């Protein structure tokens, strides 16, 4: 189980999507949420420190989810940051690549609060939290 006070970064280039995901996280009780609109912005925000979780879309301009994940995993400060990939039904093939790059779990959109909780709990479990 994750600490409800943890700081979460939501990354997606479509602002409505960010809003929706933020809303769902709030429904689960998380309040400390920040946003970024692409991988590059996401990574620089993470570097400012204090984040405990990342929920990211995969398909974004400028720097996509996979690239950002790779950067995170190669950064000494951020390498253990839990990352949840948000993917579309048609992109299941990308999940394998993502797992190889070190993503913790993936969730297919559209998802409900229950589904998101399940996925996050799974990550927590694997991390021994």
């Amino acid at each position: 189980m994750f600490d409800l006070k943890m700081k979460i970064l939501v990354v997606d280039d479509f602002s409505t999507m960010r809003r929706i995901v933020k809303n769902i996280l709030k429904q689960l009780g998380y309040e400390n949420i920040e946003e970024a609109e692409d991988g590059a912005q996401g990574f620089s925000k993470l570097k400012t420190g204090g984040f405990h979780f990342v929920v990211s879309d995969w398909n974004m301009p400028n720097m996509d989810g996979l690239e950002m994940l790779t950067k995170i995993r190669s950064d000494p400060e951020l390498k253990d940051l839990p990352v949840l990939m948000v993917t579309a039904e048609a992109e299941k093939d990308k999940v394998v690549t993502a797992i190889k790059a070190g993503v913790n779990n993936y969730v297919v959109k559209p998802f409900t609060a229950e589904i998101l909780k399940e996925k996050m709990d799974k990550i927590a479990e694997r991390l021994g939290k």
Partner: protein
Amino acid sequence: MADEIDEMDEIISDFVVEAEESLEKIDPLFVELETKGHDKDMLNEIFRSMHTIKGAAGFLGFQHIVDVAHKAESIMKKLRDDEMQVSTPVMDVILKSVDMLRLLLQHIKAKDGKTEDTTALQAELDAALTGAPVQTLQTPSQPQAAVQEAPAAGRQKSVNGPAADAAQENTLSGGTEPEPKKDDVRIPEVVHAQPAASSEADHHAAEERAVAAAQTKEPSQTLRIDVDKVDKVMDLAGEIVLVRNRLMNIGNYLEEKYSGDSYVESLMGTVSFLDLVTSDMQLAVMKMRMQPLKKVFSKFPRLVRDLSNNIGKDIELIITGEGTEVDRAVIEHIGDPMVHIIRNSVDHAIETPEVRQKMGKPTKGRVSITAFQQGNQIIIEVADDGKGIDVERVKKKALEKALITEDEAQRMNDESAVNLIFMPGFSTMDVATELSGRGVGMDVVKTNISKLNGYVEVRTVKNVGTTFRINIPLTLAIIHALMVRARDNQYAIPLAPIEETLKVAVKDIENVSGQKVLVVRGKVLPLFELSDILGYGTGQGNEYRYVVVIAIGDRRFCIAVDELLGQEEVVIKTVEGIDTNAAFIVGATITGDGKVVLIIDLAGMSRNVLGLKKM
């Protein structure tokens, strides 16, 4: 509970806004793709649009949108990854999907609970995805149907290359000899065109290209703000301008009366500073509301494509200067009049390829839209190389409808006559076509444009083409004006169209067949007394007149007044309850010394006094 509903409402309306913007952005890409053929970046943009809209719609439960967007997205993916060829039937189905999505979004926006039946479209999308020949359930017109038969018959209609063009011309003109090769450099159809038009346009296009090159692509910081909030700030800025004017007025008076007083000096210094800051603020507020004309222009390529396909004409659209920025109000109201003008060009003006060929014109008709800033004005020109407006026919129709008298028709020159089309009740095509509605429209165009304090004129040359020129002031609400006195009344004349002001002796004013004229720098210009035009009658016993020389478009004339009172920056306030057009005013303002002064509508006045219509 209520909070959650509000939150949901907001999320949904944000979704609609963003989705619509996304679709708007990809609109011009379709037409570009038809000429460029395969462009991975463009295809990817369209793919991403569908993908993103599908994603959010899924969360919000808009299943129809998800279904359509999903299928369209799958097709786009194949096109982008080169697993399928870009072709007109496929792009048509994607375009239909865009239209359907727009419709569905509108229903959501309107909260009318309605929905659309997407089964037919989905079937088409499925067919396109599997590569089956696309059976469209509505065939818009003959040429379209012919083109669709071609793939089945084994001639894959791909959209690039001279061979394909030959094939296209073949099907369109019904089986004539295909041209062996395309001569000339291919001019990209839209947007990045080299304008062949006037040197003005050339200069602006060059400027534009330089600016575009200098801009680096950086993620922009933007803020979504309610238009109402911006408008409120604009209003307040306008009020401050008025207050500043009053302060300067009082300050000037005090300076004269108490010259040397240190407090008055201080006051004057502070007022000067206020003046500077107010001007800057005005500019900044004005810029807040400005957006590039691209917002309006982006839907035109598709409009021209669809219209010309519908009636079997071959027309290319060239747009220059879409980066020119105008006030938001202009963006909102300039679209309709322009659509009307474009429709007229496509429908009435540009000849069919056969006719054009016989006349020795290129079979491809051309409509060009050029926008640029000229001083305080925004100019938008819509030009076509069609058959021109038949001026004699226009005069005849105007006579028939008793819009002008025999006498006027005789005296009228071609340049004035062609502008008759803007009179109400006028239609150059009495036969209604489905495209242009009742064929009546130019007066509506004129009215809409004058609502923006602008005016529109037309120039035409028989068999060569027609150009519509729309002229709109940069700032709608605040203008520089020359204050004048005519008999006992003060008026404000917009500064922009004023060429110069003169003091002349009454004896220097000549009279030619009942019309007063003045020779200004070697040219004979008609002269009118302002008080006359406004219905106050002429004053008596003047030795001198102050003359304001006005230039509007191609028309130049003089207005005589009793006194020139100086320049002022005024805020235009609309006047309700009277027929401002008939009264030749655009509004009123409150001057620095607290008076209400009417602002003259020079465009309307010029059309009247220069003999185009009697009220």
